């Protein structure tokens, strides 16, 4: 588990956060699936860096995966070499319109989950969202 890292100034920052929209979408997905879900961060190719959403336990994790924490009980994993390559950022779970990629579960209204990192939360950036 890797829920907290220290930033350059030595202050603690969480590895994982979620916008209120993501948490609401997640609650609706849990209701539809009848149980908890899990997230596994994708690193590229056709899916860009979307967090793939599966029913909890569907995707087998192993020693190479890092658990960043959970969003209302939904665990969020990332491959450890991918995490290192990304510089171990804070990941913020959000939602966007459009069908999900691969075998990822989508939201109940035709959307999909996305990961934002600190970079996307700079003032004025179109992807900025309030962090819950």
């Amino acid at each position, binding site marked *: 588990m890797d829920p907290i890292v220290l930033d350059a100034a030595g202050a603690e920052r969480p590895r994982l956060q979620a916008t209120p929209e993501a948490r609401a979408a997640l609650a609706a997905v849990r209701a539809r699936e009848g149980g908890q879900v899990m997230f596994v961060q994708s690193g590229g190719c056709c899916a860009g860096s979307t967090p793939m959403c599966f029913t909890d336990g569907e995707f087998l994790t192993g020693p190479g995966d890092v658990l960043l924490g959970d969003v209302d009980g939904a665990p969020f994993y990332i491959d450890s*070499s991918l995490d290192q390559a*990304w510089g171990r950022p804070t990941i913020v779970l959000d939602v966007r319109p459009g069908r999900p990629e*691969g075998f990822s*579960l989508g939201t109940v209204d035709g959307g999909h989950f996305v990961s934002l*990192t600190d970079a996307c939360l700079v003032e004025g950036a179109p992807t900025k969202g309030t962090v819950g």
Partner: protein
Amino acid sequence: MLYPAPGTEGSKVGVNPTYGNFIGGKFVDPVKGEFADNPTPVTGKPFTQHAQSSEEDVELALDAAYKAAPAWGEASLAQRAAVLNKIADAVEANLEEIAIAECYDNGKAVRETLNADIPLLVDHFRYFAGAARTEEGTISEIDNDMVAYHFREPLGVVGQIIPFNFPLLMAAWKLAPALAAGNAVVLKPASPTPWSIMKLMEVIGDVVPPGVINVVTGPGAQIGKALATNKRIAKIAFTGETVTGRLIMQYAAQNIIPSTTELGGKSPNIFFADIMDADDDYLDKAIEGLVLYAFNQGEVCTCPSRALIHESIYDEFMARCLDRIAKIKQGSPLDTDTMMGAQVSTNQMDKITGYCDIAASEGAECLIGGQKAALGGDLADGYYFNPTVYKGHNKMRIFQEEIFGPVLAVTTFKDDAEASPTTPCTAWGPASGRATAPAPTAWDARSRPDASGRTATTPTRPRPRSAATRSPASAARITA
């Protein structure tokens, strides 16, 4: 010339209001009767609907495949080769129509589908028709009285899941070898591109025994999973992203069946100083190699989306490249003058825009592009992005992550040794290219960088016999 949009006046390509699944040689509506809109990236507007299948439809497809598999598997290699050649001939006879359909479903320029995607598809079927004929087994001696002979036999019924970036070519890469080997197939196309394959089935449906090829469309989480976990397939083949690839391998392990997976990555192109020794065709090729990051709108797993340029030539070489990039002609993908078409979906557009934001916040310098392309008119809501180049360093996220768009990250290096440690920094890397004056320097760099499958120029010309190898995390083989 500007082709009329499929389904509109003057177009050679018809469009039905809905398309069912292709099962047992016919189009069959999904059991639960659900359809979903399919927008074209050209305008961003829906132009048809495809089956939003459920698990029942996968079972029907498997039923049809099981009915067809015995006769197809027992057919002689010559008989199967003849069918593959008929497929190639039928596509070739309808090349223009199929190229227009592929352009409209994926958004890529019709110039590419007419000259690359569809001709390569035709060639792929002919290649495997030939490969089938030359298939051989082995025989070895056990002792004086006993020999062991080994024939290859079809697996039976196999599942295939393909991506959106080259919808028909990816289908050909999967179908041709599987059919040559005598298997019947259930194939699931990618959700953003469920239509062009149905146009392909309309053209080849008559020449393939019913049930040998079956196509089911629907959401990955339901249909992809229903296929990949099904106990009735003897193998699963997948091309796509890495997390899904892992899940595929996991499902295959649970049923103890083989899987082949071709996954993603980010490839470096390295440009050494000696390429600028002369202003010749070779230099022109090197420039072209850099600019090829924009090929297929950057939606290629082997996209050379990272360029390492020797610092002594950077200014002049980059100026030449930017000049050429500025000349990339955008416009309607249906116009044969258009060089770079639309991205496949709004999801992709969001991701590309997101990466441009990341680039800015990481302090990368934007050399060209960096925003959506405003093409106006009918194309105003289409998915167009300007060819983009950022200058930065190898530790930036835009250097590490596969953006899958027309975005190039460039950096400089000082000596050859530096080109080595900088390049293996990514978690994945499907192919790499090294541009250097012919002979010595290219061969010296044999063991570097970490991304494997290197070529002397750029790796953007896949042919049936050329393997795309990968680093372990995107474990792939020759697709079959």
